[in-house]
């Protein structure tokens, strides 16, 4: 990021954001790879099961985050 005069926090934030991008894009690709041209389309059962799997995974992650955020002295 030559040309930007950033403080340490700002530079760290920007670098974190940029570093996270490949991971975000990868996650989207993996999640929808069955929809890529050439790949067989997913069956209805697979799509419904994938949704339920996502719901369970999200619920677990939410619980984990809430436990972390509610720890005494976190804020």
């Amino acid at each position, binding site marked *: 990021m030559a040309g930007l005069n950033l403080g340490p926090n700002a530079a760290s934030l920007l670098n974190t954001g940029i570093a996270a991008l490949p991971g975000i894009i990868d996650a989207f690709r993996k999640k929808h790879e069955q929809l890529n041209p050439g790949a067989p389309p997913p069956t209805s059962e697979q799509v419904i099961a994938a*949704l339920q799997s996502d719901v369970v995974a*999200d619920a677990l992650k939410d619980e984990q985050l809430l436990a972390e955020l509610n720890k005494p002295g976190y804020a």
Partner: protein
Amino acid sequence: MQRVMRHYRLITVLALLWALAGCGATPPPNLTPQATAAFHARRALDVLRVIRDTAVDASRQTPPLISHKTAIHVVTWHKSLVQAIGAVPSGVRNTVDTALVQLKADIPPEDWKRIENYVNLLRAVIAEVT
């Protein structure tokens, strides 16, 4: 700092839009109506996850870009919303619309501005639900 945040948000949103565009917004034609609803619901969950993680990560910055209280509120909001979508995937559009109105009313305007780009992305995704 605001300049940096603009770059950060712009790059992230552009990458997400690009990724979503490449993932196919149209469900495969072989799906049943129930599975088509699940397909759209999953796409909404993808963006909801980004909103939650953005709020949590922003609250962890020094100084925090989003208040700790708001981060907890967003995670709790996300948890309820995901359960509601999982229970009734066909109602994802109305469920998300209602939940967004509630979230905007519940968190400070300055915190809302931090996640607004991702909220707009979510609105774009659920607008595709037919």
